[in-house]
């Protein structure tokens, strides 16, 4: 499906937050320390993404990204990937649950078409098919 450049894709939220499962998708270059880092040597940008599991320990996460100052994220990943904050909101009953998987990718790219038509669709499929998420929170850096 192609959209007019003026169209805003919008899916209504018809549930209740307290019963909803939330997934995080960040363009801030977040990945597990054991996963292959994003390729920052490629001037065109890295079109890959990493799956971050439901029970990820925030201390096992890191940032590989060369287009923003991520020193604060290196200290506290929650400033760009608020996984512990999300868990706090679940404990408070504000949200119903934390999704089975989340996604990190490196938002910098010179290959916009490939990102838009490839990576973005793949991430959407990952979230749609395996995360049990009702809503997604998107962050950059």
């Amino acid at each position, binding site marked *: 499906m192609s959209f007019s450049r*003026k*169209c*805003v*894709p*919008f*899916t*209504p*939220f018809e549930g209740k*937050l307290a019963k909803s499962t*939330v997934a995080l998708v960040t363009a*801030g270059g977040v990945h597990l320390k054991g996963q292959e880092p994003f390729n920052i040597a490629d001037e065109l940008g890295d079109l890959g993404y990493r799956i971050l599991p439901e029970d990820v320990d925030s201390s096992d996460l890191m940032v590989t990204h060369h287009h*923003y*100052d*991520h*020193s*604060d*994220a290196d*200290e*506290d990943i*929650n*400033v*760009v990937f*608020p996984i*512990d*904050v*999300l868990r*706090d*909101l679940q404990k408070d009953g*504000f*949200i119903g649950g934390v999704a089975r998987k989340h996604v990190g990718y490196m938002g910098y790219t010179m290959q916009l078409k490939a990102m838009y038509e490839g990576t973005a669709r793949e991430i*959407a*499929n990952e*979230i*749609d098919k395996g995360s049990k*998420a*009702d*809503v*997604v*929170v*998107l*962050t*950059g*850096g």
Partner: protein
Amino acid sequence: MKGIPTILITVSPEVSAQMRPPRAIYPNGFKIGNSLGKPGMRDLQKAVLGDALTLLTENTRPGQIITREYPEYGEFHEPPRVRK
């Protein structure tokens, strides 16, 4: 695919607006790298994430970026501007 509701937390509102996000919140003055606030400021991070999620339940206009104030952040950084 049936579609899934999303909310974007952006610290580059003019840049993000070009992509017409369905829903977006801009914590006013937060710098790039601090989408949720500063390290260790858990109450602020909860406030930002909570407000972002709450926008899902409000009657926002698709494509509109909502600015929210968080004086406890303690700084103001000009976001990147888009040349018109």
